[in-house]
């Protein structure tokens, strides 16, 4: 059942078209993410849902009811702000009790639910502390507890992990998934980090310049991006300029400059003579020493020009004979060996004939 429906919403700020005819449906119980570079309109959309701003055109429905006439304080939608926006003059307990006090709940119920909410975020021992006495991660958890305690229909999260450092962010990601599963509240999460989006979400809407480019599950989005922007924004990707030579029944034959024929999966609507790029993920590119002849159809000679050692994986930057640089990612799965190749090694890069996606210009 859809809980939130955004229908043809447009929002302008002066000359800037912040949201351009956006239509989205969010299902009840989902962890839904709005992902995009800064300025793509994701935060604007969040503010429209919360009610801090009004659309110039279009409508927003919550549980089938148009929200236009409902002020923010009447919407069963709570927000976790990027800055957390904890009330500095209230203790953790009073911060979390705030929405319940506003809803004029009986005192003993407030007491009970605040206690429960603080347990959920593992902060029972901090209930008498003031926000400035907490670490960044603890503040973040108080903001979460405050947003969830009065069981909103939607919880909006505006880059809540942005202010945390890497190690803590990773840990909070796990906590967020567990929390959302436990409380069963629908989450609408805004982020510019594709890694956060992939790790957390049930579904992701990729936004760019006020438009929704693609809405899909993380693995679909990563494996089958609808266009070049999505392909490039989600994860790293190699872009090999090529021209379509033939379209076979099952696949395309591409011609890459100074490289030769490349087999690629068929794309609808593409015909011989089209130019474009073959987008290929680094982890789909195999790399082997020159001596071995790979059994894969697409294989080309190259020279290792650089490598980025990341511990669990290493990214090799290989220069092909046509001068194009291609990245290949290898997991360091053999014990005690961190690198399989060194800079200046002659190697063969190869990929399956059904790997990659062709985007025409």
């Amino acid at each position: 059942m859809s809980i939130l429906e955004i229908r043809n919403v447009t929002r302008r700020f002066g000359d800037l078209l912040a949201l351009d005819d956006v239509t989205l449906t969010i299902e009840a119980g989902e962890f839904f993410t709005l992902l995009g570079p800064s300025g793509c309109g994701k935060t604007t959309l969040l503010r429209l849902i919360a009610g801090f701003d009004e659309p110039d055109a279009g409508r927003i429905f919550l549980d089938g009811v148009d929200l236009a006439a409902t002020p923010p304080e009447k919407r069963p939608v709570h927000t976790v702000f990027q800055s957390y926006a904890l009330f500095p003059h209230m203790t953790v307990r009073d911060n979390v009790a705030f929405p319940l006090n506003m809803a004029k709940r009986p005192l003993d119920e407030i007491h009970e639910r605040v206690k429960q909410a603080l347990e959920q975020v593992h902060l029972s021992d901090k209930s008498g502390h003031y926000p400035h006495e907490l670490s960044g991660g603890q503040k973040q958890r108080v903001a979460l507890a405050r947003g969830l305690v009065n069981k909103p229909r939607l919880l909006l999260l505006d880059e809540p992990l942005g202010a945390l450092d890497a190690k803590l962010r990773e840990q909070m990601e796990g906590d967020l998934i567990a929390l959302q599963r436990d409380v069963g509240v629908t989450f609408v999460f805004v982020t510019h980090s594709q890694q956060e989006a992939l790790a957390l979400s049930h579904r992701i809407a990729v936004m760019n310049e006020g438009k929704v480019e693609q809405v899909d599950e993380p693995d679909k989005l990563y494996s089958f991006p609808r266009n070049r922007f999505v392909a490039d924004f989600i994860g790293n990707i190699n872009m090999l300029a090529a021209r379509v030579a033939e379209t076979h029944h099952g696949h395309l034959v591409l011609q890459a400059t100074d490289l030769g024929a490349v087999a690629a999966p068929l794309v609808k609507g593409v015909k011989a003579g089209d130019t474009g790029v073959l987008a290929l993920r680094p982890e789909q590119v195999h790399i082997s020493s020159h001596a071995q002849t790979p059994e894969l159809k697409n294989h080309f000679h190259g020279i290792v020009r650089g490598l980025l050692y990341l511990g669990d994986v290493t990214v090799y930057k290989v220069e092909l004979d046509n001068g194009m640089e291609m990245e290949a990612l290898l997991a360091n799965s053999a014990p005690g060996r961190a690198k399989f190749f060194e800079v200046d090694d002659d190697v063969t890069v190869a990929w399956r004939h059904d790997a990659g996606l062709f985007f025409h210009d």
Partner: protein
Amino acid sequence: MKFVHYALEALAGRLVKWLVSLPPTLFLLVFFVAPSLIVVLASFRYPGEFGGLASLLPLFGADSGLTLETYRFFFSDFVYFEIFLKSFGVAALTTLICIVMAYPLAWLIARSPKKRRDLLVLLVILPFASNFLIRVYAWIIILGPFNLLYTSFAVIVGMVYVHLPFMVLPLYTNLEKHDPALLEAAQDLGANAWTRFWKITFPLSLPGIFSGSVLVFIPVLGMFAIPELLGGTGDILIGNLIKEQFLDNRDWPLGAMLSIMLTVAVLALAGLSAWAGRGKGRMA
């Protein structure tokens, strides 16, 4: 060698420290300790032959000539107590009116676009760039035709008028620092405009209100020009009393004693409010 080097360095370090702490020490000595001592001593002296003060120099000789006369005088006459009480009442009322008048003004400035704020602050200060007396005389001209001159009302109006900017500025400085996200968060969590003000804006502005109150309350207690020019004969405050002793009666010991009693009363009040507000220092 090394040792000598370090010893010299330590010495130089101490010299710098001493040079840096000299000005504040001097400041306190010259500007606080010395005048205060003089005032305290003066309050225990007899008035001089032609008014003023018997010379202070014999103090350090055999004839110290100290007396509790002025203090006995103060505590024996109930009229002083009455004037003190009235002065504190006027100061409190002025402070209260200033808070009520300054709040919307400060709030409006803090909420206006950033580049317009400086201009608005300037507009608040501007009326007070001109001579103090001029401004009081303007009020004489305004209040005269309404037969409101030489009344307690006129005194309060003058007091509020002169001290209002000292309430507006600290309040504005405080309100400007408020994170607008806090109000959005409160609204998001179900608070209407009224609740947002009383639960968020007001408690967070208390330090600003406090600063402003100090800046209004204390000067009002020392003010003598406004009661003199705008008030009636019954509107004498401590400030006038003290000024009279120095300028008109030339009874310096009495003036000094009154000033000491005023300082003691203010400090007692400050201590009381610090005690009442203890543990609230956590506010951001």
